[in-house]
C-alpha cells in the first residue's frame, strides 16, 4: 500500500446561525419548536478529494488560502473526521500544523520536548537519546529550562520543528504557517529535509512558496475550493496554480502616434506562446512586440528600448541597428519583436522605456511605458548565485570547468 491514500474525502461544516446556536438550551428548544429563523449553512471544505502518495515521496499541496489545505491535513492526521470518504496512512506521523501546538506555555522547553515526544508515541528513553540533538538544532540551549511562554515565536517554532523532525516519524506533514528562523536555520532545515528524504520518509509539504515546492517535490496536488483541480507533475501543477498576472502593464497603445515622422503605435509584452502577459518566469523568453509607423522615407531610423529596474535607470538597451545595417526605412506600418534571452533578468520588477529617432535627432521617448515582473516559479532559488538578494544585476551564465587534470606533470 502506498504511504498515504486519500479516497473521496469530503468534509462538511454546519454553521448554525442564530442566537441559539451556542447554547444547549437553545438547541433543545429548537428541537421542540422547529424555528425557521434559525438556519444552518452547509460549508463543504473538501469535496471528493482523492490521491495517493508513495513511500519516500515528497508530495506538495498547493492552493489559495481557504482552498481546504489545512482541513485536508487535519483529516490526514486524524484530528478531524471526514464527512465521507477515507484517509489511510501507514506509519507514525509527525505533523507541524501551527506554532506552539502541543507545547504547554507553563512548562519549560525541556518538559515540552518530552511531552511532545510522548505525543509522538516515543518512550522517555528514546526522547532522552535525541534530546541534545533537538535542542542544538533549535538553537535554544540557553533557554531550554525556561518556560515555553517566554520563548519568542521564532524560538517556539524552531523547537517545534526540531522536535518533529528529529524524532523521525515515518510520515512528515509540514504546513507552512510562519516563516521562522534566519537564513542559516532555514538552510539547516532544508538539509534535514533532504536527509529525511534519503531515509525514505514520506513528506507532505504545503507551502505558498512555489520555488520551494518546485525544488523539493516531484509531484503535487492543487486544491481549489475544496476540490482537487490537478494532481501530478509538480511543474504542471504549479503552472495551473499561478494566476495570470494582474499587475504590470503588458500593453500600451499610442493611438495614431506622435507627430514625428517615425512614431510608435503600440507596444506589448508577450511570452513564447504569443500570449500577452506582464509576468514572466525566470526561465522564459520575454518578447517585446512593437508596432510603428513611418510616414516618410527615413534614413537610419532606429528604435530603441531601455530596460530599467525599480531603482536604477538602465539595465540594458537595445537598438534596432544592432543586427542589421539600416539604410532608408520605407513608409508604412511595421512590426518588430525583440526577443530577450531566458535566464537573463533576475527576479524583480522592471519597466521598459521606448525611444526612436534618427542620428542626432530623437523622436519619441516614452518612459516606462511597459512594466513587467520576473518571478521564479519553476526553480528553487536557494543556492543559485543569481538569487534576488545576491549581488549581480543580471544573470549571465558561465561555466566552471575543472582544470586540475590538465596540470599533470609531463
Amino acid at each position, binding site marked *: 500500500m502506498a504511504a498515504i491514500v486519500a479516497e473521496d474525502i469530503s468534509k462538511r461544516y454546519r454553521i448554525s446561525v442564530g442566537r441559539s446556536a*451556542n447554547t444547549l438550551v437553545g438547541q433543545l428548544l429548537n428541537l421542540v419548536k422547529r424555528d425557521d429563523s434559525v438556519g444552518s449553512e452547509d460549508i463543504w471544505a473538501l469535496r471528493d478529494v482523492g490521491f495517493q502518495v508513495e513511500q519516500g515521496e515528497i508530495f506538495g499541496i498547493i492552493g489559495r488560502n481557504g482552498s481546504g489545505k489545512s482541513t485536508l491535513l487535519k483529516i490526514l492526521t486524524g484530528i478531524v473526521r471526514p464527512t465521507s470518504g477515507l484517509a489511510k496512512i501507514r506509519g507514525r506521523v509527525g505533523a507541524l500544523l501551527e506554532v506552539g501546538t502541543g507545547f504547554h506555555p507553563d512548562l519549560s522547553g525541556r518538559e515540552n520536548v518530552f511531552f511532545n515526544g510522548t505525543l509522538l508515541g516515543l518512550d522517555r528513553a528514546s526522547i532522552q537519546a535525541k534530546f541534545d540533538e533537538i535542542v542544538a538544532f533549535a538553537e535554544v540551549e540557553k533557554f531550554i529550562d525556561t518556560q515555553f511562554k517566554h520563548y519568542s515565536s521564532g524560538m*517556539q517554532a524552531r523547537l517545534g520543528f526540531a522536535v518533529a523532525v528529529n524524532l523521525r516519524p515515518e510520515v512528515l506533514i509540514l504546513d*507552512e504557517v510562519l516563516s521562522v528562523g534566519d537564513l542559516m536555520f*532555514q538552510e539547516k532545515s532544508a538539509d534535514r529535509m533532504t536527509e529525511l528524504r534519503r531515509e525514505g520518509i514520506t513528506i507532505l509539504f504545503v507551502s505558498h512558496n512555489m520555488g520551494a515546492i518546485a525544488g523539493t517535490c516531484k509531484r503535487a496536488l492543487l486544491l481549489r475550493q475544496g476540490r482537487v483541480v490537478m494532481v501530478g507533475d509538480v511543474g504542471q501543477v504549479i503552472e495551473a496554480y499561478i494566476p495570470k498576472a494582474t499587475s504590470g502593464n503588458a500593453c500600451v497603445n499610442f493611438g495614431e502616434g506622435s507627430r514625428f515622422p517615425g512614431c510608435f503605435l503600440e507596444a506589448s509584452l508577450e511570452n513564447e506562446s504569443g500570449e500577452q502577459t506582464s509576468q514572466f518566469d525566470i526561465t522564459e523568453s520575454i518578447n517585446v512586440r512593437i508596432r510603428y509607423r513611418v510616414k516618410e522615407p527615413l534614413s537610419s531610423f532606429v528604435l530603441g528600448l531601455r530596460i530599467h529596474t525599480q531603482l536604477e535607470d538602465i539595465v540594458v538597451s537595445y537598438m534596432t541597428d544592432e543586427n542589421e545595417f539600416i539604410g532608408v526605412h520605407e513608409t508604412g506600418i511595421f512590426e518588430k519583436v525583440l526577443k530577450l534571452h531566458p535566464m537573463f533578468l533576475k527576479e524583480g520588477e522592471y519597466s521598459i522605456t521606448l525611444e526612436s529617432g534618427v542620428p542626432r535627432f530623437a523622436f519619441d521617448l516614452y518612459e516606462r511605458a511597459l512594466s513587467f515582473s520576473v518571478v521564479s516559479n519553476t526553480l528553487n*532559488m536557494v543556492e543559485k548565485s543569481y538569487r534576488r538578494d545576491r549581488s549581480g544585476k543580471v544573470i549571465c551564465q558561465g561555466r566552471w570547468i575543472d582544470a586540475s587534470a590538465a596540470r599533470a606533470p609531463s
Partner: protein
Amino acid sequence: MIDTDLENDVGSRLIMEAGSSSSVRTTIVPGNGVDRSVQVVAPPRLLRDLWRNLALLLNSMPLFKVFVRRSIALRHTQSFLGVVWLTIQPVASTLTVLFMFNIIQVNTADGANKGLFLFSGIMVWQFFARGLTDATSSLHAHAGILTKVYLPKLMLPLASVAAAWFETLITIALLILACFVFGIPLSPRVLWLPIFLTIVCLSSLCIGIGLAPLHALYRDVGMMVPFALQLAMFISPVYYSTRFIPQKYQLLYHLNPMVTLIEGVRWSLLPESPAPELGYIIINLVSIVLMFGVSLFIYQKLESLVVDRI
C-alpha cells in the same frame, strides 16, 4: 529574563516555513487484519469509534500519565496556596455552619459528633463537585490541543478525574486528621473509606464524560453545572442526616447516589452513623453504571462535532 533580540524573524527567502509540533500515534486498529500500523481516518460511527477509542486509550498509557501529571500540577499551581486551599475551604465551611447551627440551636447530626459529621459531608461533596467540574471543562480547557494534535480525547476527562482521585489520599488524610482533632476513635470500618471515595470519583467521571463535550460545544452548560450542583447539594445529606427524611420519601431520596456514598463515608468514620442499606447500595451502583453508559454514548456521539466546532 529572556534576551529577545537574540531572535530575529527574517522571512523573505524561505525554504521551510515551519509551525510547531503536533503528532499522531500509531493506532493498532482492532480487527484490521493485514497491516497493523495503518491508520484509517473515517467518518464517525458510534460503536466502531468507541471501541477504537478504548483500544487507543489503553495503548496511550505513557501519554495518559503525562496528562494526569499535568492535571495535578495545574490544579495546584493555579492557586498560590494549592493543597492548603483544599483544606481551608471545607474547614472554614464546617466551622461556619457549626457555629450557625449552634446559634439557631439545630442539631442535624443525629447523634454523631457535629463537627466531624459536617466536615465529612462537606469534604465528600467538595471532592465530588470538583471532580465533576474539572471533568466537564476538560475538553474545553484543552481546546488548543484538540484542534492541532491527534490524541484519544477520552483521555482528557479521564485524566482530570484521575488527578482528582490521586487527591483522595489527601482527603483521606484530612478526614482521619479530623477524627483525631474531634477525638473520635478510629475503627476498622475506616478501611471502607477509600472504597467509598473511589466510587465518588467514579460517579463524577460517569457524569463528567457526558458533560465534557456538551460544555465544549455550548456555552450555557458551564453555568448550568455549578447551578445544578448547588441544587444537588441540598438534596444530598451534606448538612443533615438522612434519617430526617420522612419514610415515604426514603427510596426516592436514595436514588441519589451521593446519599448512599456520604452515608458510607460517615459510617466508616463515626461510630454512631448507621451503615447504608445494601438495597440502596445496589440500586446506586446500577444507576452509576447506567449513567456511565449514557454519558459514554453522548460523548462518542459528540466527539467529532467538538473538534469541528471548538
